[in-house]
């Protein structure tokens, strides 16, 4: 088959859109089947199901990241900023990771005022937190602590766990700089790079959003912080 390159350029967005739609349909069905099978099965295989759920979520996040990168690249991306409740965003991220957190029986605690307001792009920020939470659920031992509050004119979301903590090379990396490809390698690094990029697109009054990671978790493991202006 010969492909007319001038035509394939205009075809690409259409084919990309249909392909993504198709993969997402399949993922949706896979995830629902995992949930159903897991609820029927008692005991033994829960670890396998949990791995399946984690991987499926990971595929989904990677797919979304690719798509956003493509849009930024072709100048078809802009944030849709509005006012939301910080708690709604936390709940959205939690709901997204609901099956995995049940499978792993992780204790999850939330500390956020129910009238705390947040100015951001809702789907992108709740997804970003979902990505971090998915990772935390994978690496924590027993508990996760999610909190939100105001700090120095920023709204700060925190996700803390009681796992091993971030590895040394990630702690040393400059999260806003993808040029240093070493740290971006691997799923955790890719996810962090993407979240940092989305945060950096949030701007207000000369301030820019950013992320910070360290191992100062109150639970003794990794701590991720997202700052939105």
């Amino acid at each position: 088959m010969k492909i007319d390159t001038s035509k394939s350029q205009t075809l690409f967005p259409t084919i990309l859109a249909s392909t993504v739609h198709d993969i997402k349909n399949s993922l949706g069905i896979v995830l629902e089947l995992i949930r159903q099978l897991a609820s029927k099965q008692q005991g033994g295989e829960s670890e396998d199901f949990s791995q399946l759920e984690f991987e499926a979520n990971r595929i989904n996040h990677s797919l979304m990241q690719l798509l956003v990168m493509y849009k930024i690249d072709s100048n078809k991306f802009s944030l849709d900023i509005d006012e939301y409740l910080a708690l709604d965003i936390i709940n959205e991220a939690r709901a997204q990771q609901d099956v995995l957190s049940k499978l792993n029986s992780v204790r999850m605690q939330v500390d956020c005022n129910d009238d705390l307001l947040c100015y951001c792009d809702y789907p992108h920020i709740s997804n970003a937190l979902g990505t971090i939470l998915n990772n935390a659920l994978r690496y924590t031992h027993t508990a996760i602590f999610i909190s939100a509050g105001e700090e120095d004119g920023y709204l700060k979301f925190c996700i803390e766990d009681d796992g091993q903590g971030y590895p040394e090379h990630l702690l040393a990396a400059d999260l806003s700089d993808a040029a240093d490809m070493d740290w971006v390698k691997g799923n955790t690094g890719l996810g962090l790079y993407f979240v940092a990029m989305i945060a950096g697109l949030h701007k207000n009054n000369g301030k820019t959003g950013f992320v910070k990671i360290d191992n100062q978790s109150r639970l003794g493991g990794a701590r991720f912080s997202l700052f939105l202006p």
Partner: protein
Amino acid sequence: MSFNLAGKSILIVEDYPAMRKAIRDMLYTLGADIILEADGGVNAINAMAKTSFDVVLCDYNLGAGKNGLQVLEEARYRKLIGNKCVFVIISAEQATGMVLGAMDGKPDEYLAKPFNAQQLSTRLQRNFARKDYLACVEKEIERGNLPKAILNCEKLLAAGDKKMHSQLLKLRAELAISSGDFETASKLYRDILANRELPWARLGLGIIEFQQNHFEQAATIFEQLIKDQPMLMEGYDWLSKAYEGLNNLNDAQAILHRAVDLSPQSILRQKKLAVTADRNGNLDVAEKAYRATVNLGKNSVHKSCSDFAGLAKLYSKTNANDEALKTLKAMRLEYGSSMEAELRAATLETELYKKLGNEEASEEALQKVIDFNNQLGGKIPKDLQLDIVKTCFLTDQHDKAEEILSGLIKTHIDDEGFLDDVRRMQSGIGMDNHSEVLIQKTKQALIATNNRGVALYKQGKYKEALDLFEQAFDSLPDNKTITLNMLKIIIHDLKTGDVSEEKVLRAKSLFKKGRQIGIDPHKLGVLQMELSDVSRQRLAASSS
């Protein structure tokens, strides 16, 4: 789990059976017991025509046929869903809202695939809570009772719920715009913007300038807005309207073109581009946009035979006569027994067959035009009447042409855009300035009537003023200025003089007429607010 969907009627619209089943299973875990399914747009519309649903979960991508937004558009247009129904568009992508939004209705929620039961439940809970909270305002808006809607909105604002505050302010500002209270709306938006730069508030400020005919200021705001928010389609739509207001049709076309490139799925936007490019003489752009419009029309409630006719006219202009006839044939297939479609086809065929030298067919078509025109009369859309006038001039039916034309000018004497269309049509057939005398005479007659009516009104002779305007309707039917003046007089009379049921009824029927003939909603809104003040004062007086 405390949240339960038992007793709620839910419709799933999804073309992929395995996905339908997955969603259904999720809904079962949330306690749902009334679930209906549709595998495509047409079946979804049929289901909504039969049942009033509490929740519609509709996939955006439904394969062949309508897409999810076209389903929503049609459901809203045909009033198949009430303001209590939560309509969710399920899409494969994040943040499709802005791109697809505007010129089409907006759903209550976009949900990205894949999602689980917990996500669905969180979103539905939030929407039910919001709808319950705003019901007292939305209900009055749906009823058309603006004053009551504003009153209820003020009450909610006074209650001071911080969580809903922003949404209420947005709604309050929109209500202020609808009631012509631009000062309040502008203050609300400025207060919001002082705290935070939010696109909808910036857009609102632009709309306020536009509604007051400050097109220059409006354009400046919208230009900056789309620079900051390049994917906000509403910004492009309003900017093109502002350019149109400035009579800058080239920039209007350019901006519509950019919007269509970013978001090609909106039929109304494509049509706007087609018509604008056609006016500008950019026939290539117009042809492409008309073809897109006709294509999108296959699945849209906004489809119209005028789109086919527009394309056929375009072909006729470039002497692609066979293409034109082919397009008309396709139109007949799509619109079978519609008189309007037949009339549009015959009008163009008269001209086309004449050009092709087929005098007999041309005359036959012309006879059809004249017969249909006599049957339908004033019910024919103005653009089609103008086409008929053109055809009559071209076939030497001058008396018929003048008759229709004079009616058109008198009815639409307020509509400068349409008068320009009349002038353009005449120049196109070598009759420059043909109607200028009639247009000027009609304008003067209107001004004279207005002056006399206003003078009578100032002398306190309300009845005489109203009679004068009523008579003026004979020669200037459906005139907006006269309708508005009559409303002002009646309301002033009610404020200062006796209140009678008869006067109130007359005011109400004039409001109805005003809406029918397309007076700006905010101009009617101001008067509606005044009328409601009168009724309230009357109630207060009678109870004291």
